[in-house]
């Protein structure tokens, strides 16, 4: 379980002004939930993820993961997928996926077994020996996901992981992500600026306001899983949720512009 208690975060800008990105956000995310956070740019979406991961402390307020206060240390069994490529170019796909297990000095046989399973899950088995520069952008995303999954995270934080991909690749990855989530049952918190993506994947969508941000809306998406990401978009339920969220979010975009 992830708890944010009245967190705020200010940054010092280049000309020494204090900019408050996160105003006052409180949020409770239950075990096994898939939560998407949307909001206008600059509202501190990534900052919130960084604070949950222990990369930076909040200016005020507290973050708890499974009851333990998060400050400067990464909570155990937490995975984080960045928008940027975070695969190591000098390792093969196999070596990349095994990196976390190497860090933990796991026995080689266990590492091999686990890598094989993950590569099958992510449809990467044929590319085990390839180097990242030989892969497409979508494949590199899947490698990064496998790297994370290899250490069995109970919580997955995804920071606009599919932002730079085309719609076709994105939709396929959505379907794979849902499959993986249903099989492994992590708690997922995902940042996105794509409202369709949020409603497609999440069990709950959080809308943040313009900075200094606070929570504007918590929309529970009651479309049952397993969802068919290709059919979903045509359903009336989907459209209703989009419209409800958009009424709030679109307004924020107008304010931000």
């Amino acid at each position, binding site marked *: 379980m992830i708890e944010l208690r009245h967190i705020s975060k200010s940054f010092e800008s280049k000309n020494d002004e204090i900019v408050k990105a996160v105003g006052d956000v409180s949020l409770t995310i239950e075990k096994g939930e898939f939560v998407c956070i949307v909001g206008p740019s600059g509202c501190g979406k990534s900052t919130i993820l*960084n604070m949950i*991961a222990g*990369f*930076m402390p909040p200016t005020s307020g507290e973050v708890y993961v499974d009851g333990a206060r998060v400050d400067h240390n*990464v909570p155990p069994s*937490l*995975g*984080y997928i*960045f928008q*940027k490529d*975070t695969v*190591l*170019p*000098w390792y093969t796909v196999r070596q990349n996926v095994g*990196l*976390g297990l*190497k*860090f*933990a000095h796991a026995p080689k046989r266990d590492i091999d077994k686990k890598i094989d399973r993950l590569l099958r899950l992510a449809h990467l088995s044929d590319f085990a020996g390839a*180097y*990242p*520069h030989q892969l497409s952008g979508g494949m590199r995303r899947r490698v*990064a996901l496998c*790297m*994370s999954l*290899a*250490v069995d*995270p109970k919580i997955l934080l995804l920071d606009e992981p599919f932002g730079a991909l085309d719609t076709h690749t994105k939709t396929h990855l959505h379907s794979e992500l849902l499959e993986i989530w249903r099989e492994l049952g992590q708690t997922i918190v995902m940042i996105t600026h794509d409202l369709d993506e949020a409603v497609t994947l999440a069990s709950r969508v959080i809308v943040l306001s313009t900075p200094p941000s606070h929570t504007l809306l918590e929309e529970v998406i009651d479309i049952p899983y397993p969802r068919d990401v290709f059919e979903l978009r045509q359903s009336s339920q989907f459209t209703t949720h989009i419209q409800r969220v958009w009424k709030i979010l679109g307004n924020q975009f107008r304010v931000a512009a």
Partner: protein
Amino acid sequence: MSSEHVQIVSPEMPAVRASRAQPRRRSQGRLRITLTQLLILAAVIGVWETLTRITWFQQNTIFDPFFISRPSLIGERIWTWMQPGKNSIWSHLASTLNATGIGLLVGTLSGFAVGVLLAQSRFWAKVLNPFIVSLNSMPRIAFVPLITMLFGLGLASKVVTAWFMVFFLVFFNTYKGANSVEQELVNFCRTLGGRPSQILWRVRIPTAAAWTFAALPNAISFALIGVVLAEFVGSTTGVGYLMTTSLATLNATDMFASIVVISLIGVSLVYLISAIERRVLHWSSEFRND
């Protein structure tokens, strides 16, 4: 989480990836380029050879074989040098190559080590910054007589001079490389359970090494320059020593023959390193020099 670091001096930039043309057209283009290059080379050598044989040019222009020798004479001289015996070049060549190799190795390893170490501590990088910048901006040539005075006429002063030339180049590039590791990548590895020392070995050092490799072709030239300089100033062996004796005896043919030998050493070493680089850095299109 800014990636701010202490900027010391702009390093060598790694080679930019080359654009891809169609393979067939590319090989045709390459052949034409090579042919034109050979043509230019042949023209220069031909003009040099011909004009130094014409009396009028010998008397009225610079084309006097006493001063600029002649390609055929130079070729002949190199051939004689290659024969075993009293005038053989092999001992000189070995002496220069040996010093260059050791200087390059020591300079690269120490530059790499200091670069990686200093990138770990912002405090020490800031403390040492002014010293490094001023040492680097001093004309290194000014130290060669001092180095010869301190280390004598043998191998030691050649190696020290070469090291002095190579060290800063490699150091700056490695330092920049070690600092170029993105914070996201480090944070990602932290979520995978990596401790700082593990992230150093598996992430920071490989990144820095790629930048070190990008500096190596230049480092070779610098090492060779250092060794030849030390041989100029005070030595009893080496190709640089051959050059100073040619100057003392006003022997243009010996002089040019030595220059050709030195150039060949430099070019072959750069090719050797490029070949190694292509193998080691096969994963990176950014750092490969092809």
